[in-house]
Protein backbone atom coordinates (compact mmCIF):
# COMPACT_ATOMS: atom_id res chain seq x y z
CA UNK A 1 0.00 0.00 0.00
CA UNK A 2 2.72 2.44 1.00
CA UNK A 3 4.89 1.56 -2.00
CA UNK A 4 1.85 1.97 -4.20
CA UNK A 5 1.28 5.47 -2.84
CA UNK A 6 4.95 6.37 -3.08
CA UNK A 7 5.18 5.17 -6.66
CA UNK A 8 2.32 7.37 -7.77
CA UNK A 9 2.71 10.08 -5.23
CA UNK A 10 1.54 13.01 -7.43
CA UNK A 11 -1.70 11.24 -8.31
CA UNK A 12 -2.55 10.39 -4.73
CA UNK A 13 -1.68 13.92 -3.81
CA UNK A 14 -4.06 15.38 -6.32
CA UNK A 15 -6.81 12.93 -5.43
CA UNK A 16 -6.40 14.14 -1.85
CA UNK A 17 -6.48 17.77 -2.95
CA UNK A 18 -9.64 17.20 -5.01
CA UNK A 19 -11.27 15.71 -1.94
CA UNK A 20 -10.17 18.63 0.20
CA UNK A 21 -11.40 21.14 -2.37
CA UNK A 22 -14.80 19.49 -2.78
CA UNK A 23 -15.18 19.23 0.97
CA UNK A 24 -14.47 22.93 1.33
CA UNK A 25 -16.92 23.89 -1.39
CA UNK A 26 -19.74 21.78 0.01
CA UNK A 27 -19.18 21.93 3.73
CA UNK A 28 -17.99 25.44 4.54
CA UNK A 29 -20.54 28.12 5.30
CA UNK A 30 -18.38 31.09 4.42
CA UNK A 31 -18.50 31.96 0.75
CA UNK A 32 -14.81 32.90 0.81
CA UNK A 33 -13.94 29.43 2.04
CA UNK A 34 -16.04 27.92 -0.71
CA UNK A 35 -14.01 29.95 -3.17
CA UNK A 36 -10.77 28.74 -1.62
CA UNK A 37 -12.04 25.18 -1.91
CA UNK A 38 -12.74 25.82 -5.58
CA UNK A 39 -9.19 27.05 -6.06
CA UNK A 40 -7.77 23.97 -4.35
CA UNK A 41 -9.85 21.75 -6.62
CA UNK A 42 -8.63 23.57 -9.71
CA UNK A 43 -5.00 23.44 -8.55
CA UNK A 44 -5.34 19.71 -8.00
CA UNK A 45 -6.33 19.25 -11.61
CA UNK A 46 -3.45 21.40 -12.79
CA UNK A 47 -1.14 19.22 -10.70
CA UNK A 48 -2.65 16.15 -12.31
CA UNK A 49 -1.90 17.38 -15.81
CA UNK A 50 1.58 18.61 -14.96
CA UNK A 51 2.49 15.33 -13.30
CA UNK A 52 1.10 13.41 -16.25
CA UNK A 53 3.38 15.20 -18.69
CA UNK A 54 6.47 14.37 -16.68
CA UNK A 55 8.84 11.63 -17.76
CA UNK A 56 11.61 10.13 -15.66
CA UNK A 57 15.08 11.11 -16.87
CA UNK A 58 13.82 13.28 -19.71
CA UNK A 59 14.89 16.80 -20.45
CA UNK A 60 13.37 20.11 -21.47
CA UNK A 61 11.32 19.95 -24.65
CA UNK A 62 13.87 21.96 -26.64
CA UNK A 63 15.65 20.33 -29.56
CA UNK A 64 19.23 20.29 -28.22
CA UNK A 65 21.56 19.64 -31.13
CA UNK A 66 20.24 20.96 -34.36
CA UNK A 67 20.37 18.22 -36.95
CA UNK A 68 22.11 15.78 -34.64
CA UNK A 69 19.21 13.38 -34.90
CA UNK A 70 18.42 13.62 -31.23
CA UNK A 71 14.72 14.00 -31.88
CA UNK A 72 13.58 10.91 -30.04
CA UNK A 73 10.38 11.95 -28.31
CA UNK A 74 11.15 9.70 -25.37
CA UNK A 75 14.03 11.96 -24.36
CA UNK A 76 11.81 14.94 -23.75
CA UNK A 77 9.19 15.88 -21.25
CA UNK A 78 5.76 16.12 -22.89
CA UNK A 79 5.15 19.86 -23.15
CA UNK A 80 1.55 19.80 -24.29
CA UNK A 81 -0.12 19.22 -20.89
CA UNK A 82 1.94 22.04 -19.47
CA UNK A 83 0.84 24.37 -22.24
CA UNK A 84 -2.77 23.33 -21.70
CA UNK A 85 -2.40 24.12 -18.04
CA UNK A 86 -1.23 27.62 -18.85
CA UNK A 87 -4.59 28.12 -20.54
CA UNK A 88 -6.39 26.43 -17.68
CA UNK A 89 -4.64 28.70 -15.18
CA UNK A 90 -5.82 31.71 -17.15
CA UNK A 91 -9.37 30.34 -17.10
CA UNK A 92 -9.12 29.72 -13.36
CA UNK A 93 -7.81 33.21 -12.73
CA UNK A 94 -10.74 34.63 -14.68
CA UNK A 95 -13.23 32.58 -12.67
CA UNK A 96 -11.57 33.51 -9.39
CA UNK A 97 -11.55 37.17 -10.38
CA UNK A 98 -15.23 37.18 -11.25
CA UNK A 99 -16.03 35.27 -8.07
CA UNK A 100 -14.11 37.76 -5.94
CA UNK A 101 -15.93 40.62 -7.62
CA UNK A 102 -19.20 38.84 -6.79
CA UNK A 103 -18.10 38.52 -3.17
CA UNK A 104 -17.24 42.20 -2.89
CA UNK A 105 -20.66 43.10 -4.27
CA UNK A 106 -22.42 40.59 -2.00
CA UNK A 107 -20.59 41.90 1.04
CA UNK A 108 -21.53 45.46 0.18
CA UNK A 109 -25.16 44.50 -0.29
CA UNK A 110 -25.65 42.17 2.68
CA UNK A 111 -22.79 43.05 5.01
CA UNK A 112 -22.00 39.39 5.45
CA UNK A 113 -20.49 36.43 3.64
CA UNK A 114 -22.04 33.72 5.76
CA UNK A 115 -24.24 31.54 3.60
CA UNK A 116 -26.95 30.87 6.16
CA UNK A 117 -27.38 34.50 7.05
CA UNK A 118 -27.50 35.45 3.36
CA UNK A 119 -30.24 32.91 2.69
CA UNK A 120 -32.05 34.26 5.73
CA UNK A 121 -31.81 37.82 4.43
CA UNK A 122 -32.96 36.88 0.93
CA UNK A 123 -36.03 35.12 2.33
CA UNK A 124 -37.22 38.24 4.09
Amino acid at each position, binding site marked *: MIEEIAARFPYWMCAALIAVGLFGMIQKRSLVKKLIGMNI*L*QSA*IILFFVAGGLREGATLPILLEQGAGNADAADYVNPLPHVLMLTAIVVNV*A*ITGVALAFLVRIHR*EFGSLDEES*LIEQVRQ
Partner: protein
Amino acid sequence: MVIPVVTRTRSGVAFSLALGGSALSTAASAWALAEVLANGSIRYDLGGWAPPVGIQYVVDEVSAFVALVVTSVATLVIAGTRRWAEREAGARAGPFYALVMLLLAGLGGMVVTADLFNLFVFLEISSLAAYTLVFLGGRAGMLAGFRYLVLGSIGGAFYLLGVGFLYFSTGTLNMEETATILAASPSSRSVQAGAVFIFVGLGLKMALVPLHLWLPDAYTHAPSSVNSLLAPIMTKVGAYAMVRMFLSVFPDGYLKDEALVADGLLVLGLVGIVFGSVAAIRQSDIRRMLAYSSIGQLGLIAVGIGLATPLGLVAALLHVMNHAVMKGTLFLAAASVRLSTGLSSVNGLTGLGRAMPLTMACFTLGALSMVGIPPMAGFFSKWWAAQAGVESGQWVVVAVVLGSSLLTAVYVFIVLERVYLRPALPAEGHEASEETGVPVDETGDAPDASDEGVPAHVRGASESPVDVVLPLAVLALATVVLGVANSFIVTHVLEPGVR
Protein backbone atom coordinates in the same frame (compact mmCIF):
# COMPACT_ATOMS: atom_id res chain seq x y z
CA MET B 1 -18.49 32.31 -36.68
CA VAL B 2 -19.99 34.12 -33.74
CA ILE B 3 -16.73 35.30 -32.26
CA PRO B 4 -15.99 38.55 -34.14
CA VAL B 5 -19.24 39.94 -32.83
CA VAL B 6 -17.96 40.19 -29.27
CA THR B 7 -15.60 43.03 -29.77
CA ARG B 8 -18.10 45.29 -31.42
CA THR B 9 -20.65 45.59 -28.65
CA ARG B 10 -19.00 48.08 -26.34
CA SER B 11 -20.45 51.19 -27.89
CA GLY B 12 -23.59 53.09 -26.99
CA VAL B 13 -25.79 51.42 -29.54
CA ALA B 14 -25.22 48.11 -27.83
CA PHE B 15 -28.71 46.79 -28.40
CA SER B 16 -28.72 47.19 -32.17
CA LEU B 17 -25.24 45.76 -32.39
CA ALA B 18 -26.17 42.78 -30.26
CA LEU B 19 -29.32 42.18 -32.26
CA GLY B 20 -27.51 42.68 -35.55
CA GLY B 21 -24.66 40.47 -34.43
CA SER B 22 -26.86 37.62 -33.37
CA ALA B 23 -28.97 37.99 -36.52
CA LEU B 24 -25.76 37.83 -38.52
CA SER B 25 -24.64 34.69 -36.75
CA THR B 26 -28.09 33.22 -37.34
CA ALA B 27 -27.67 33.89 -41.03
CA ALA B 28 -24.16 32.43 -40.92
CA SER B 29 -25.43 29.30 -39.16
CA ALA B 30 -28.26 28.94 -41.65
CA TRP B 31 -25.80 29.26 -44.50
CA ALA B 32 -23.48 26.75 -42.84
CA LEU B 33 -26.34 24.29 -42.43
CA ALA B 34 -27.29 24.61 -46.10
CA GLU B 35 -23.67 24.22 -47.09
CA VAL B 36 -23.20 21.14 -44.91
CA LEU B 37 -26.33 19.51 -46.26
CA ALA B 38 -25.18 20.11 -49.82
CA ASN B 39 -21.46 19.43 -49.59
CA GLY B 40 -20.72 17.64 -46.33
CA SER B 41 -18.85 18.88 -43.26
CA ILE B 42 -16.94 22.13 -43.20
CA ARG B 43 -13.53 21.90 -41.59
CA TYR B 44 -11.38 24.80 -40.51
CA ASP B 45 -7.89 24.44 -39.10
CA LEU B 46 -7.22 27.20 -36.63
CA GLY B 47 -4.08 29.13 -37.51
CA GLY B 48 -3.41 26.80 -40.43
CA TRP B 49 -2.18 23.97 -38.20
CA ALA B 50 -3.74 20.72 -39.29
CA PRO B 51 -4.83 18.30 -36.58
CA PRO B 52 -3.57 16.54 -34.54
CA VAL B 53 -1.18 19.41 -33.92
CA GLY B 54 -3.65 22.25 -34.24
CA ILE B 55 -7.19 22.86 -33.13
CA GLN B 56 -9.81 22.10 -35.71
CA TYR B 57 -13.33 23.43 -36.03
CA VAL B 58 -15.79 21.08 -37.67
CA VAL B 59 -19.31 21.96 -38.70
CA ASP B 60 -21.33 18.86 -39.51
CA GLU B 61 -25.10 18.42 -39.74
CA VAL B 62 -25.58 18.16 -36.00
CA SER B 63 -23.44 21.14 -35.02
CA ALA B 64 -24.87 23.34 -37.75
CA PHE B 65 -28.35 22.38 -36.61
CA VAL B 66 -27.67 23.18 -32.96
CA ALA B 67 -25.88 26.40 -33.90
CA LEU B 68 -28.88 27.51 -35.93
CA VAL B 69 -31.28 26.74 -33.08
CA VAL B 70 -29.15 28.58 -30.53
CA THR B 71 -28.51 31.67 -32.61
CA SER B 72 -32.04 32.07 -33.93
CA VAL B 73 -33.69 31.65 -30.52
CA ALA B 74 -31.13 34.03 -29.04
CA THR B 75 -31.86 36.63 -31.71
CA LEU B 76 -35.59 36.51 -31.04
CA VAL B 77 -35.09 36.66 -27.29
CA ILE B 78 -32.71 39.61 -27.53
CA ALA B 79 -35.26 41.40 -29.68
CA GLY B 80 -38.11 40.57 -27.30
CA THR B 81 -36.42 41.58 -24.06
CA ARG B 82 -35.16 45.00 -25.06
CA ARG B 83 -37.47 46.79 -22.66
CA TRP B 84 -36.42 44.56 -19.80
CA ALA B 85 -32.76 45.06 -20.58
CA GLU B 86 -33.30 48.81 -20.63
CA ARG B 87 -34.98 48.69 -17.28
CA GLU B 88 -32.58 46.24 -15.66
CA ALA B 89 -29.25 47.25 -17.10
CA GLY B 90 -30.07 50.89 -17.64
CA ALA B 91 -27.01 52.91 -18.49
CA ARG B 92 -24.85 49.81 -18.40
CA ALA B 93 -26.44 48.32 -21.49
CA GLY B 94 -23.08 48.18 -23.22
CA PRO B 95 -21.42 45.78 -20.76
CA PHE B 96 -24.71 43.90 -20.46
CA TYR B 97 -24.90 43.16 -24.16
CA ALA B 98 -21.17 42.45 -24.25
CA LEU B 99 -21.86 39.69 -21.72
CA VAL B 100 -24.74 38.38 -23.79
CA MET B 101 -22.51 38.26 -26.85
CA LEU B 102 -19.75 36.60 -24.83
CA LEU B 103 -22.27 33.97 -23.82
CA LEU B 104 -23.28 33.39 -27.43
CA ALA B 105 -19.65 33.30 -28.53
CA GLY B 106 -18.85 30.67 -25.93
CA LEU B 107 -21.86 28.58 -26.89
CA GLY B 108 -21.07 28.94 -30.59
CA GLY B 109 -17.50 27.87 -29.96
CA MET B 110 -18.63 24.83 -28.00
CA VAL B 111 -20.82 23.81 -30.88
CA VAL B 112 -18.22 24.01 -33.63
CA THR B 113 -15.01 22.91 -31.93
CA ALA B 114 -13.53 19.47 -32.54
CA ASP B 115 -10.97 19.67 -29.77
CA LEU B 116 -11.61 18.41 -26.27
CA PHE B 117 -9.59 21.07 -24.46
CA ASN B 118 -10.93 23.85 -26.64
CA LEU B 119 -14.42 22.71 -25.63
CA PHE B 120 -13.42 23.24 -21.99
CA VAL B 121 -12.27 26.78 -22.70
CA PHE B 122 -15.50 27.69 -24.50
CA LEU B 123 -17.51 25.96 -21.80
CA GLU B 124 -15.91 28.22 -19.19
CA ILE B 125 -16.30 31.33 -21.34
CA SER B 126 -20.03 30.82 -21.76
CA SER B 127 -20.49 29.78 -18.13
CA LEU B 128 -18.61 32.80 -16.86
CA ALA B 129 -20.86 35.08 -18.88
CA ALA B 130 -23.90 33.20 -17.58
CA TYR B 131 -22.81 33.48 -13.92
CA THR B 132 -22.42 37.21 -14.30
CA LEU B 133 -25.76 37.64 -16.05
CA VAL B 134 -27.53 35.71 -13.29
CA PHE B 135 -25.68 37.78 -10.71
CA LEU B 136 -27.29 40.93 -12.09
CA GLY B 137 -30.69 39.85 -10.80
CA GLY B 138 -30.77 41.81 -7.56
CA ARG B 139 -30.20 40.48 -4.04
CA ALA B 140 -31.52 36.97 -4.58
CA GLY B 141 -29.84 36.85 -7.96
CA MET B 142 -26.47 37.54 -6.38
CA LEU B 143 -26.70 34.51 -4.18
CA ALA B 144 -28.02 32.38 -7.02
CA GLY B 145 -25.22 33.63 -9.28
CA PHE B 146 -22.50 32.79 -6.78
CA ARG B 147 -23.94 29.34 -6.21
CA TYR B 148 -24.15 28.80 -9.92
CA LEU B 149 -20.49 29.83 -10.17
CA VAL B 150 -19.36 27.41 -7.47
CA LEU B 151 -21.31 24.45 -8.84
CA GLY B 152 -20.52 25.33 -12.43
CA SER B 153 -16.79 25.40 -11.77
CA ILE B 154 -17.00 21.98 -10.13
CA GLY B 155 -18.56 20.84 -13.41
CA GLY B 156 -15.82 22.47 -15.46
CA ALA B 157 -13.11 21.01 -13.23
CA PHE B 158 -14.55 17.49 -13.51
CA TYR B 159 -14.78 17.79 -17.26
CA LEU B 160 -11.15 18.88 -17.41
CA LEU B 161 -10.10 15.99 -15.20
CA GLY B 162 -11.90 13.57 -17.52
CA VAL B 163 -10.18 15.10 -20.53
CA GLY B 164 -6.87 14.61 -18.70
CA PHE B 165 -7.56 10.89 -18.26
CA LEU B 166 -8.46 10.59 -21.94
CA TYR B 167 -5.42 12.54 -23.05
CA PHE B 168 -2.96 10.47 -21.05
CA SER B 169 -4.52 7.28 -22.42
CA THR B 170 -4.69 8.32 -26.06
CA GLY B 171 -2.16 11.11 -26.48
CA THR B 172 -4.51 13.32 -28.48
CA LEU B 173 -7.13 15.95 -27.86
CA ASN B 174 -8.74 15.88 -31.29
CA MET B 175 -12.15 14.25 -31.04
CA GLU B 176 -11.98 12.08 -34.13
CA GLU B 177 -8.45 10.90 -33.38
CA THR B 178 -9.51 10.00 -29.87
CA ALA B 179 -12.28 7.85 -31.32
CA THR B 180 -9.91 6.09 -33.72
CA ILE B 181 -7.35 5.38 -31.01
CA LEU B 182 -9.94 4.24 -28.48
CA ALA B 183 -11.51 1.88 -31.02
CA ALA B 184 -8.15 0.24 -31.62
CA SER B 185 -6.99 -0.04 -28.03
CA PRO B 186 -8.21 -2.47 -25.38
CA SER B 187 -10.49 -1.10 -22.71
CA SER B 188 -8.75 0.51 -19.79
CA ARG B 189 -9.76 1.72 -16.39
CA SER B 190 -8.43 5.21 -16.94
CA VAL B 191 -10.50 5.77 -20.09
CA GLN B 192 -13.59 4.59 -18.25
CA ALA B 193 -12.81 6.90 -15.35
CA GLY B 194 -12.27 9.73 -17.82
CA ALA B 195 -15.64 9.08 -19.44
CA VAL B 196 -17.38 9.16 -16.09
CA PHE B 197 -15.67 12.40 -15.06
CA ILE B 198 -16.57 14.03 -18.38
CA PHE B 199 -20.20 13.08 -18.01
CA VAL B 200 -20.44 14.21 -14.41
CA GLY B 201 -18.95 17.54 -15.49
CA LEU B 202 -21.26 18.00 -18.44
CA GLY B 203 -24.18 16.70 -16.38
CA LEU B 204 -23.64 19.56 -13.95
CA LYS B 205 -23.69 22.04 -16.79
CA MET B 206 -26.86 20.61 -18.30
CA ALA B 207 -28.56 20.23 -14.91
CA LEU B 208 -29.07 16.49 -14.96
CA VAL B 209 -31.10 15.54 -11.97
CA PRO B 210 -28.95 15.08 -8.90
CA LEU B 211 -26.76 17.89 -10.26
CA HIS B 212 -29.56 20.37 -10.97
CA LEU B 213 -29.43 22.33 -7.72
CA TRP B 214 -28.17 25.53 -9.28
CA LEU B 215 -30.89 25.77 -11.91
CA PRO B 216 -34.16 26.70 -10.15
CA ASP B 217 -32.63 29.61 -8.22
CA ALA B 218 -30.59 30.82 -11.18
CA TYR B 219 -33.61 30.86 -13.50
CA THR B 220 -35.97 32.37 -10.97
CA HIS B 221 -33.79 35.19 -9.73
CA ALA B 222 -31.97 36.13 -12.90
CA PRO B 223 -33.20 39.31 -14.59
CA SER B 224 -36.07 38.68 -17.00
CA SER B 225 -33.97 39.61 -19.98
CA VAL B 226 -31.49 36.97 -18.88
CA ASN B 227 -33.61 34.00 -17.90
CA SER B 228 -35.47 34.06 -21.19
CA LEU B 229 -32.06 33.84 -22.84
CA LEU B 230 -30.40 31.29 -20.56
CA ALA B 231 -33.30 28.90 -20.17
CA PRO B 232 -33.70 28.01 -23.84
CA ILE B 233 -30.06 27.71 -24.87
CA MET B 234 -27.60 27.37 -22.00
CA THR B 235 -28.33 23.83 -20.86
CA LYS B 236 -29.05 22.73 -24.42
CA VAL B 237 -25.47 23.27 -25.45
CA GLY B 238 -24.37 21.16 -22.48
CA ALA B 239 -26.67 18.46 -23.84
CA TYR B 240 -25.17 18.95 -27.29
CA ALA B 241 -21.67 18.43 -25.85
CA MET B 242 -22.89 15.11 -24.45
CA VAL B 243 -24.28 14.09 -27.83
CA ARG B 244 -20.93 15.06 -29.33
CA MET B 245 -19.17 12.71 -26.90
CA PHE B 246 -21.35 9.86 -28.14
CA LEU B 247 -21.01 10.77 -31.81
CA SER B 248 -17.39 11.76 -32.22
CA VAL B 249 -15.28 11.09 -29.17
CA PHE B 250 -16.12 7.61 -28.00
CA PRO B 251 -16.43 4.79 -30.54
CA ASP B 252 -19.83 3.25 -31.24
CA GLY B 253 -21.27 1.46 -28.28
CA TYR B 254 -18.24 2.25 -26.12
CA LEU B 255 -20.15 4.26 -23.56
CA LYS B 256 -22.89 1.67 -23.37
CA ASP B 257 -20.77 -1.44 -23.04
CA GLU B 258 -17.69 -0.24 -21.22
CA ALA B 259 -18.36 2.70 -19.02
CA LEU B 260 -21.99 2.40 -17.93
CA VAL B 261 -22.35 6.07 -18.77
CA ALA B 262 -25.25 5.49 -21.12
CA ASP B 263 -27.24 3.51 -18.57
CA GLY B 264 -26.49 6.09 -15.92
CA LEU B 265 -27.78 8.85 -18.18
CA LEU B 266 -30.89 6.84 -18.96
CA VAL B 267 -31.74 6.26 -15.31
CA LEU B 268 -30.98 9.83 -14.23
CA GLY B 269 -32.97 11.14 -17.17
CA LEU B 270 -36.00 9.08 -16.20
CA VAL B 271 -35.72 10.23 -12.60
CA GLY B 272 -35.32 13.79 -13.88
CA ILE B 273 -38.50 13.66 -15.96
CA VAL B 274 -40.59 12.53 -13.02
CA PHE B 275 -38.90 14.75 -10.43
CA GLY B 276 -38.94 17.90 -12.57
CA SER B 277 -42.57 17.54 -13.56
CA VAL B 278 -43.79 16.76 -10.05
CA ALA B 279 -41.78 19.62 -8.57
CA ALA B 280 -43.15 22.00 -11.22
CA ILE B 281 -46.72 21.27 -10.13
CA ARG B 282 -46.03 22.57 -6.63
CA GLN B 283 -44.48 25.90 -7.59
CA SER B 284 -46.35 29.14 -7.16
CA ASP B 285 -43.91 31.31 -9.09
CA ILE B 286 -44.30 30.95 -12.82
CA ARG B 287 -40.57 31.24 -13.50
CA ARG B 288 -39.79 28.62 -10.90
CA MET B 289 -42.41 26.35 -12.39
CA LEU B 290 -40.83 26.76 -15.81
CA ALA B 291 -37.38 26.12 -14.34
CA TYR B 292 -38.47 22.81 -12.81
CA SER B 293 -40.20 21.90 -16.01
CA SER B 294 -36.85 22.55 -17.74
CA ILE B 295 -35.30 19.95 -15.47
CA GLY B 296 -37.97 17.48 -16.55
CA GLN B 297 -37.50 18.27 -20.23
CA LEU B 298 -33.71 17.97 -19.91
CA GLY B 299 -34.39 14.57 -18.42
CA LEU B 300 -36.12 13.65 -21.65
CA ILE B 301 -33.08 14.79 -23.62
CA ALA B 302 -30.84 12.74 -21.33
CA VAL B 303 -33.04 9.69 -21.88
CA GLY B 304 -32.68 10.08 -25.63
CA ILE B 305 -28.90 10.32 -25.32
CA GLY B 306 -28.78 7.49 -22.81
CA LEU B 307 -30.54 5.07 -25.15
CA ALA B 308 -27.39 5.47 -27.25
CA THR B 309 -29.11 4.42 -30.46
CA PRO B 310 -29.28 6.63 -33.56
CA LEU B 311 -33.01 6.98 -33.03
CA GLY B 312 -32.48 8.01 -29.42
CA LEU B 313 -29.95 10.66 -30.42
CA VAL B 314 -32.36 11.95 -33.07
CA ALA B 315 -35.03 12.27 -30.40
CA ALA B 316 -32.62 14.05 -28.07
CA LEU B 317 -31.49 16.54 -30.70
CA LEU B 318 -35.03 17.16 -31.89
CA HIS B 319 -36.00 17.86 -28.32
CA VAL B 320 -33.05 20.22 -27.93
CA MET B 321 -34.60 22.29 -30.68
CA ASN B 322 -38.20 21.94 -29.56
CA HIS B 323 -37.43 22.67 -25.97
CA ALA B 324 -35.37 25.72 -26.88
CA VAL B 325 -38.30 27.11 -28.85
CA MET B 326 -40.95 26.19 -26.28
CA LYS B 327 -39.05 27.46 -23.25
CA GLY B 328 -38.14 30.61 -25.17
CA THR B 329 -41.85 31.18 -25.81
CA LEU B 330 -42.88 30.51 -22.24
CA PHE B 331 -40.19 32.60 -20.56
CA LEU B 332 -40.76 35.46 -22.99
CA ALA B 333 -44.48 35.31 -22.31
CA ALA B 334 -43.80 35.35 -18.57
CA ALA B 335 -41.53 38.35 -19.07
CA SER B 336 -44.21 40.06 -21.09
CA VAL B 337 -46.75 39.52 -18.31
CA ARG B 338 -44.32 40.90 -15.78
CA LEU B 339 -43.65 43.88 -17.97
CA SER B 340 -47.31 44.71 -18.03
CA THR B 341 -48.47 43.68 -14.55
CA GLY B 342 -45.32 43.32 -12.50
CA LEU B 343 -46.40 39.90 -11.29
CA SER B 344 -44.79 36.55 -11.69
CA SER B 345 -46.84 34.28 -9.46
CA VAL B 346 -49.09 31.70 -11.04
CA ASN B 347 -52.08 33.35 -9.39
CA GLY B 348 -51.04 36.63 -10.90
CA LEU B 349 -51.98 35.28 -14.30
CA THR B 350 -55.63 34.98 -13.30
CA GLY B 351 -57.93 36.51 -15.85
CA LEU B 352 -55.16 37.71 -18.12
CA GLY B 353 -56.61 35.79 -21.07
CA ARG B 354 -58.77 38.78 -21.81
CA ALA B 355 -56.38 41.55 -20.89
CA MET B 356 -53.37 40.27 -22.81
CA PRO B 357 -54.84 38.03 -25.51
CA LEU B 358 -51.77 37.80 -27.74
CA THR B 359 -49.24 37.08 -25.01
CA MET B 360 -51.52 34.50 -23.52
CA ALA B 361 -52.23 32.88 -26.87
CA CYS B 362 -48.48 32.46 -27.37
CA PHE B 363 -48.09 31.14 -23.84
CA THR B 364 -50.85 28.63 -24.55
CA LEU B 365 -49.19 27.46 -27.76
CA GLY B 366 -45.88 26.94 -25.98
CA ALA B 367 -47.54 25.22 -23.05
CA LEU B 368 -49.61 22.87 -25.21
CA SER B 369 -46.52 22.02 -27.18
CA MET B 370 -44.79 21.08 -23.95
CA VAL B 371 -47.64 18.75 -23.01
CA GLY B 372 -47.30 17.17 -26.44
CA ILE B 373 -50.55 17.88 -28.26
CA PRO B 374 -50.09 16.42 -31.75
CA PRO B 375 -49.52 19.09 -34.35
CA MET B 376 -47.11 20.90 -32.03
CA ALA B 377 -43.38 20.37 -31.91
CA GLY B 378 -43.29 18.90 -28.42
CA PHE B 379 -45.37 15.91 -29.46
CA PHE B 380 -42.89 14.76 -32.06
CA SER B 381 -39.80 14.69 -29.91
CA LYS B 382 -41.72 12.67 -27.34
CA TRP B 383 -42.94 10.44 -30.17
CA TRP B 384 -39.39 9.83 -31.37
CA ALA B 385 -38.17 9.23 -27.84
CA ALA B 386 -40.94 6.71 -27.23
CA GLN B 387 -40.15 5.06 -30.56
CA ALA B 388 -36.47 4.85 -29.67
CA GLY B 389 -37.52 3.24 -26.39
CA VAL B 390 -39.66 0.68 -28.20
CA GLU B 391 -36.87 -0.04 -30.63
CA SER B 392 -34.40 -0.89 -27.90
CA GLY B 393 -36.99 -2.70 -25.82
CA GLN B 394 -36.88 -0.23 -22.92
CA TRP B 395 -40.52 -0.20 -21.95
CA VAL B 396 -39.85 1.86 -18.86
CA VAL B 397 -38.80 4.69 -21.14
CA VAL B 398 -42.02 4.52 -23.11
CA ALA B 399 -44.09 4.51 -19.94
CA VAL B 400 -42.25 7.42 -18.36
CA VAL B 401 -42.28 9.52 -21.53
CA LEU B 402 -46.02 9.04 -21.92
CA GLY B 403 -46.60 9.57 -18.22
CA SER B 404 -44.59 12.77 -18.30
CA SER B 405 -47.12 14.21 -20.74
CA LEU B 406 -49.80 13.72 -18.13
CA LEU B 407 -47.69 15.33 -15.41
CA THR B 408 -46.87 18.24 -17.69
CA ALA B 409 -50.56 18.57 -18.49
CA VAL B 410 -51.29 18.96 -14.79
CA TYR B 411 -49.13 22.02 -14.23
CA VAL B 412 -49.85 23.52 -17.62
CA PHE B 413 -53.59 23.31 -17.12
CA ILE B 414 -53.34 24.73 -13.62
CA VAL B 415 -51.99 27.82 -15.32
CA LEU B 416 -54.30 27.86 -18.33
CA GLU B 417 -57.37 27.40 -16.18
CA ARG B 418 -56.47 30.54 -14.27
CA VAL B 419 -55.68 32.45 -17.41
CA TYR B 420 -58.88 31.78 -19.30
CA LEU B 421 -61.61 30.35 -17.13
CA ARG B 422 -61.39 32.28 -13.89
CA PRO B 423 -62.59 35.82 -13.67
CA ALA B 424 -60.12 38.13 -12.03
CA LEU B 425 -61.13 37.57 -8.43
CA PRO B 426 -59.87 40.26 -6.10
CA ALA B 427 -59.02 38.12 -3.10
CA GLU B 428 -57.71 35.20 -5.08
CA GLY B 429 -54.15 36.18 -5.83
CA HIS B 430 -53.20 37.66 -2.48
CA GLU B 431 -51.53 34.80 -0.64
CA ALA B 432 -49.37 33.64 -3.46
CA SER B 433 -48.35 36.95 -4.88
CA GLU B 434 -45.44 37.25 -2.51
CA GLU B 435 -42.41 36.54 -4.56
CA THR B 436 -38.90 36.25 -3.27
CA GLY B 437 -37.26 36.94 -6.57
CA VAL B 438 -38.37 40.44 -7.35
CA PRO B 439 -35.65 41.69 -9.63
CA VAL B 440 -34.34 44.57 -7.60
CA ASP B 441 -34.41 47.33 -10.06
CA GLU B 442 -31.19 49.27 -10.18
CA THR B 443 -32.96 52.48 -10.98
CA GLY B 444 -35.52 52.01 -8.25
CA ASP B 445 -38.74 52.17 -10.26
CA ALA B 446 -39.56 48.53 -9.75
CA PRO B 447 -42.74 47.46 -11.47
CA ASP B 448 -43.58 45.22 -8.57
CA ALA B 449 -44.83 48.03 -6.40
CA SER B 450 -48.37 47.08 -7.34
CA ASP B 451 -47.87 43.59 -5.93
CA GLU B 452 -50.57 43.98 -3.31
CA GLY B 453 -53.44 44.96 -5.52
CA VAL B 454 -54.14 41.94 -7.64
CA PRO B 455 -57.43 43.15 -9.09
CA ALA B 456 -55.79 46.43 -10.03
CA HIS B 457 -53.17 44.70 -12.10
CA VAL B 458 -55.71 42.89 -14.20
CA ARG B 459 -57.75 45.99 -14.78
CA GLY B 460 -54.62 47.95 -15.60
CA ALA B 461 -53.01 45.25 -17.68
CA SER B 462 -52.92 45.72 -21.37
CA GLU B 463 -51.13 43.99 -24.18
CA SER B 464 -47.38 44.44 -24.27
CA PRO B 465 -45.99 46.64 -27.03
CA VAL B 466 -45.43 45.17 -30.44
CA ASP B 467 -41.66 44.77 -30.13
CA VAL B 468 -42.28 42.35 -27.27
CA VAL B 469 -45.16 40.47 -28.82
CA LEU B 470 -43.70 40.06 -32.29
CA PRO B 471 -40.65 37.90 -31.35
CA LEU B 472 -42.92 36.04 -28.96
CA ALA B 473 -45.41 35.33 -31.71
CA VAL B 474 -42.65 34.16 -34.05
CA LEU B 475 -41.40 31.72 -31.42
CA ALA B 476 -44.90 30.50 -30.64
CA LEU B 477 -45.73 29.93 -34.28
CA ALA B 478 -42.40 28.16 -34.64
CA THR B 479 -43.61 25.51 -32.21
CA VAL B 480 -46.37 24.70 -34.70
CA VAL B 481 -44.28 25.03 -37.85
CA LEU B 482 -41.43 22.94 -36.45
CA GLY B 483 -43.96 20.33 -35.39
CA VAL B 484 -45.34 20.09 -38.90
CA ALA B 485 -41.85 20.14 -40.42
CA ASN B 486 -40.38 17.63 -37.99
CA SER B 487 -40.18 14.69 -40.40
CA PHE B 488 -38.28 16.85 -42.88
CA ILE B 489 -35.82 17.94 -40.19
CA VAL B 490 -35.33 14.40 -38.99
CA THR B 491 -34.78 12.75 -42.35
CA HIS B 492 -32.70 15.50 -43.92
CA VAL B 493 -30.69 16.94 -41.08
CA LEU B 494 -30.55 14.71 -38.02
CA GLU B 495 -30.47 11.21 -39.45
CA PRO B 496 -27.46 11.87 -41.71
CA GLY B 497 -25.89 13.63 -38.77
CA VAL B 498 -26.03 10.83 -36.24
CA ARG B 499 -24.94 8.09 -38.57
